[in-house]
Every structure is written in structure tokens, then in C-alpha cells.
């Protein structure tokens, strides 16, 4: 036990004290933030060119009034189409829009003509379409002699509020599933990255030990299994340290960036949301609701469970990476062909996880979160969705059993592998090693 502790300490300290570790740990949150800001900037980027569009309204449906949209400016010059075309060619306008009269007041589709030598960009196209269509709607209401207020009242927006059937069940809002999906997605990604980054770290380190031959000195003092476990636990502790620093740093840095650059963090994090269609009050209330939902999530249950699955998944895959590292030595090509069988289940689990956050109670999600090779990545993604206890228990028990089995299996491969030199290693060979004695 004492020796295992010494190994863990060395594996941990030798990594944590490295300059490169300190740099990546401190800079990654910054990099992430700048990435989000950058993405937000790109997503909200609109053409900065002004688009001047001349409209010929043949039936005067628009009454020479139409709202400009962003960088698109409309005008109704009194000129013929040919004059306007010529002016467009000279660059006075970007295009000429011809609105023919409606063939019938009840027509549902209406075709407009746009004259220009420039390509009509998607942005401009949709701006024109929505502006003109809402003006035609007003024209129709007026022509049909309808009461605009009555027409407006035809619109009803509906919202679904999920209610529990069993008494005393939690009353959750629809916001909950969005929050749950987001949370599940973040946890799933963390698992996925954790398994790969730290698994690879272990594999490289085992390969290095084998290549520079320190391993024989080591295992004349300690058992191969102790060496392997020491490395896995040590590197795991490194990962935990890194995550912890990030969990503390990311909110801190985002607040800081907010203060310095005045970016609206909320807007940055949801670049996909069409902020234009939502007035600031709505935004405010949505953020409030989201915060409330986040507060109502049972963190005391989710965080320990997440950690359990994280540790389980980490041990499972890390031990496999260690076994591969022990088998290949310094041959990068071999290591790639042998890591492939390990990577495939991780990748499959990742895709199932992406589906599971949308449909957390589908058959696929349920069984994938119980199957031990997938569960460490899929189950955390479902945790925010009130997973039945029997599923969590079954999943954990199976995971534990599999971890024990895989660590044992890897230990057996590792023990033979680290002393084996100059032999091309295949999967079949690895299989044989499991049954070697002593």
C-alpha cells in the first residue's frame, strides 16, 4: 500500500509540476472562452454592406411604406423599370424589386421579381420576403375590411407545462428538459474527453517506461500491478485536478471577460438562439427561469453519481490503454491499430449520448446507459432526467464488475507486455498473454 502511494505521488507530482501542465490548465479556460466569443461573433455577424433596393409596386399595395430591415434599405423611386435597371447597373441600387398586382385577394402565393447582376444573398432574400409579406398581409386585411385586432387575436401561442401523475411528484417546467439536455451534454463531453485525454496520457507514459527500460528496475521493487494502478490513479488525480481548476476558473474568467470587454455572456453561450426575435424582457425572464431550474436540480445526487461513473469509466478505459501501451513499446503504428478497438466503443457511446439527451427514456438510451462499455458516457447524460433507481443501480453494479474484470485483464497483459521486446504484437497475441502464468 505504501509503495502504491509512492508511485501515485510520483506519477501525480511529475505531471502537475510540469510547466506544460500548468500552462494548459490555466490557458484552456481562456481558450474556451475566446472560442465561444469568437463563435458568437461569427454567428451574429451580418453583412455590413448597405443594400439599397428600389421597389416598383405596380398596384401600390405597400403604400410606399415598408420597414427597413437591418442593412437593407427600401425605397420607392418614381422611375420606370428600365431607368432603375440602368441605375442599378451603375451601382446606385443593389437591385430592383418588382411587385406585380395580386391576381386574387385570397391568393396564397405571390411571386416577386428581383433584378440585379449580383447574387441575391440569403440574408437579403429573407429580409425582403418577410418585409414584403407582412406588408401584403396588412394590405389584405384592409382590402377585406377585417378588424386588425380581431385578426391578431386569431393567433394563440401555446406552451406545454409537464405535470406529474403520481402525487407528490415533482412539478417541472418545460425548461427542465432543455436544461437537462444541456447539462447531460456537458457531462457526456467531459466523460468522453476525460477518457481519451487521460487514457492516452497513460498509454504514452507506459510506452515511455518500457522504451527507456526503467520498468525492469521498477518491477524488481514493486509488482507490475502496483505500477500500473499507481500510474492510473496518479494520472486520474491529475485529471481531477485539471477539471477542478477549470470548474473554478471558467466562471471566474467569464465574469472577468464580461467586465473587461462588456460582452453579454448569455448571448455568447447561445449563439444559435435568434436573439433578434426575442425582446430583452423575454430574455431576462428566460434566464431567470433557467437559473431557477438549475437551482431545482438535485445536485447532491447528480454530482456524486457523475463522479462514480467518471471514476468507473476512467478506470475501465485507462486500464485498457495501459495494457496497449505495455504491449507496443515505441511503435506508434502498432499503438494506433491496437487503440482502435478501444476507441470504437467510446465513439459509439458518444453518439448514443448525443441522442440520449434528446430522448432520455428511449429504449436505446436506457440500455446503452446500462451496458458497461457505454454507461460511463451515456448515463451521466441522462442523470438530469429522473432516471429510475433500478437503472442507476444496475448500471453501477455492472460497471463495477466490468471495471474489476478489465483491470484484472489489463494487469495480466501489462505484466507480460512490459518485459516483452522486439515482437510484433497482435490482438491474438494479447489474448494469449492473459493466460500466461507468473
Amino acid at each position, binding site marked *: 500500500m505504501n*509503495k502504491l502511494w*509512492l*508511485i501515485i505521488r*510520483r506519477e501525480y507530482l*511529475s505531471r502537475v509540476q*510540469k510547466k506544460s501542465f500548468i500552462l494548459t490548465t490555466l490557458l484552456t479556460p481562456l481558450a474556451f472562452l475566446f472560442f465561444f466569443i469568437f463563435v458568437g461573433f461569427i454567428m451574429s455577424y451580418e453583412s455590413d454592406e448597405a443594400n439599397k433596393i428600389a421597389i416598383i409596386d405596380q398596384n401600390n399595395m405597400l403604400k410606399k411604406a415598408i420597414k427597413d430591415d437591418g442593412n437593407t434599405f427600401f425605397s420607392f423611386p418614381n422611375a420606370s423599370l428600365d431607368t432603375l435597371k440602368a441605375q442599378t447597373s451603375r451601382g446606385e441600387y443593389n437591385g430592383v424589386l418588382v411587385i406585380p398586382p395580386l391576381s386574387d385577394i385570397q391568393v396564397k402565393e405571390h411571386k416577386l421579381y428581383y433584378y440585379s447582376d449580383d447574387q441575391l444573398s440569403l440574408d437579403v432574400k429573407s429580409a425582403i420576403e418577410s418585409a414584403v409579406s407582412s406588408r401584403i398581409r396588412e394590405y389584405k386585411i384592409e382590402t377585406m375590411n377585417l378588424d386588425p385586432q380581431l385578426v391578431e387575436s386569431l393567433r394563440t401561442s401555446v406552451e406545454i407545462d409537464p405535470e406529474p401523475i403520481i402525487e407528490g411528484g415533482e412539478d417541472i417546467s418545460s425548461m427542465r428538459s432543455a436544461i437537462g439536455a444541456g447539462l447531460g451534454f456537458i457531462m457526456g463531453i467531459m466523460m468522453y474527453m476525460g477518457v481519451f485525454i487521460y487514457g492516452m496520457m497513460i498509454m504514452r507514459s507506459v510506452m515511455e*517506461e518500457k522504451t*527507456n*527500460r*526503467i*520498468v*525492469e*528496475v*521498477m*518491477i*524488481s*521493487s*514493486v509488482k507490475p500491478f502496483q505500477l500500473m494502478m499507481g500510474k492510473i490513479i496518479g494520472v486520474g488525480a491529475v485529471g481531477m485536478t485539471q477539471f477542478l481548476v477549470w470548474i473554478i476558473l471558467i466562471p471566474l474568467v467569464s465574469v472577468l471577460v464580461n467586465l473587461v470587454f462588456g460582452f453579454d455572456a448569455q448571448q455568447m453561450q447561445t449563439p444559435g438562439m435568434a436573439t433578434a426575435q426575442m425582446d430583452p424582457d423575454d430574455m431576462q425572464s428566460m434566464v431567470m427561469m433557467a437559473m431557477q431550474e438549475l437551482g431545482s436540480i438535485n445536485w447532491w445526487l447528480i454530482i456524486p453519481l457523475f463522479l462514480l461513473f467518471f471514476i468507473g469509466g476512467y478506470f475501465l478505459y485507462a486500464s485498457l490503454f495501459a495494457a496497449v501501451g505495455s504491449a507496443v513499446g515505441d511503435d506508434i503504428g502498432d499503438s494506433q491499430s491496437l487503440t482502435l478497438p478501444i476507441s470504437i466503443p467510446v465513439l459509439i457511446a458518444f453518439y448514443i449520448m448525443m441522442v440520449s439527451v434528446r430522448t432520455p427514456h428511449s429504449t436505446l438510451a436506457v440500455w446503452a446507459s446500462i451496458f458497461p462499455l457505454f454507461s460511463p458516457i451515456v448515463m451521466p447524460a441522462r442523470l438530469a432526467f429522473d432516471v429510475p433507481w433500478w437503472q442507476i443501480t444496475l448500471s453501477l453494479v455492472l460497471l463495477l464488475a466490468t471495471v474489476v474484470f478489465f483491470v484484472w485483464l489489463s494487469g495480466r497483459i501489462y505484466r507480460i507486455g512490459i*518485459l*516483452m*521486446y*522486439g*515482437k510484433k504484437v497482435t490482438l491474438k497475441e494479447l489474448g494469449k498473454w492473459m493466460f500466461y*502464468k*507468473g
Partner: protein
Amino acid sequence: MANILELTDVVKTYQTTKAVDHVSFSMPKGSIFGMLGPNGAGKTSLIRIITRITQADTGSILINGARLNDDHPEDIGYMPEERGLYKKMKVGDHLIYLARLKGLSEKQAKEAIHHWMEKFEISDWWNKKVEELSKGMQQKVQFIATVVHKPSLIILDEPFSGLDPINANLIKDEIDNLRSQGSSIIFSTHRMEQVEEICERIVLINRGQNVLEGVVGEIKQQRKKNLFRYQVSGEIPGGILERKEIIDQSEGSYTLRFTEERDSNLFLKALVDAGVYVYGFEEILPSLNEIFIQTVQEQGMTIEEPINIPS
């Protein structure tokens, strides 16, 4: 004298190869012991069994009369043929780490390492990274790591490979010191001439088998062929050499084989009587190399070519 190490009928098989084939030998406490044999003879396999890196299939290994167990590695110092250290670690930290894995406390480890580093005059390496050292320097560090916990059994696999003569002598002297402090030392090498003068006892291994074991002096005595070399000034008159078997003759140096050992003295007397000035007279004992080859041939075996055995 009690035995520090006793092997009885030790067998180790890798799939199809018998790396160690019923090897038995014993090693007295406080001796310097040579384990000799060509590459691939099974020496490293044997060492790995003794250091508990692998386990024997059958057979018994006793250390100080007790069956080999998990406590013994702390009492053994092993320097493998293929040496390695963590390149990014500082020399001092590295030695402390290895010493602590052998059961020393932090304080004990520091004291012992300082002592050794002063002895080798390398105290200023403490904060250097291993990768900054030359190969020969790393070997010194490796040697300290091997002996820092005062093991009662020290096993050195090809200890002089890659060492310059000065450092090789330094290590030889330290090995003598350690022996006088009560350690027992196993030398494993295929360079038999290297250990001829250091080892008191040897075991010769070929193809995983113990082909010869015993005290070096006795082995040589048993295998001697009554060869004697006479060094004279001038030439030996032809008459005296009549009916004598001359093995080798060069300027003033004659090597002769006698059927009876005491005939060498009679020949010497004859030379002196004939007025030949003899300034050198010695018995030529066979080298371990010769003994090895002869023994292997007598037993109808072949010398194993170095092959790539999974070790």
C-alpha cells in the same frame, strides 16, 4: 558458511522454450559469485526469478534459508543489463524515489544517497535532470540506486558494459567494499574473462542448464592440462627438448605439456643443470572461457546462439 541463496531444480518455460531447465546451485553468504554463460543462456531469466520479476514454474528458491517471498525484493539490489531512469526527473529525487520503493524512509534515503554521491564525487548532480547526464554518468546513478538500501544480495547483470576502465574500476572497488561489509554479490555476464579475477565461485549456464558449478580455483585445478611456460634467455638446447610435447614456442618462451605434473619440475632442473638461465616459470591454468567450451562439448551440447527469447 551459510548460504544466502539456494536454488533447487528451478524450471521456467516460455511457451516452447525452456529458458531455465532444472537449475540448482547455492551461493555462500558474503561471496562474489559469477553467473556465466553466452547470450540467451537463461541468465537473465534466472535473475528475474530471483528478483521476483517472474515466477519459476517449479523448483525452490531459498534466501537465507527462507522461501522467496514478497519481503525479499527489499533485501535485493538489482541492476539490469538494460538500464533506464526517468529522464525528466532530478537525480536526487529519482534516487530517493527508488530508495523509498525499497523500503527506506525519506530521511534514511537522503542520508544514504548523500553518502554515495559524495563517495562518487557527484554531489553537485543532485538537482540535475537525468537526461542532462552522459550515459556513463547515468550508470553511476544506476549503481547507487542498486546498492543504496544496503541489500544483502546484489545482482549485477553485465555491470561493466558501456563503462570506461576508470569507472569500471571504481565500481569494482565498491563491490569489494560492499562485500567486506557483508553483502553477497552475483555477477552475471557473458564476458567470462571480466570476472575471472573477481569471482570466487561460479556457475556456468548453457541452454538453461547448469553445466558447471564450483570454486574458481578448484575448477581450474581440476581442468588443468599440465601446461607450463618457461621463459629463458637464449634458446633451450635441442637435447633437453627431446620427446617433450611443445604446445607453443616463441622467442625465449616455451609452453610444454607434461603427462605428470611433477615432470615440470624435473624439466626445470634439467634446464638449470644445462646452464640455461630461467627467469620465468608458471603453470598455465585454463581460462573460464576454455573450460566452458570444453565442458559444453564434453556434455554433447551446443552453445546456444543468441536468440530472441521472450524474457
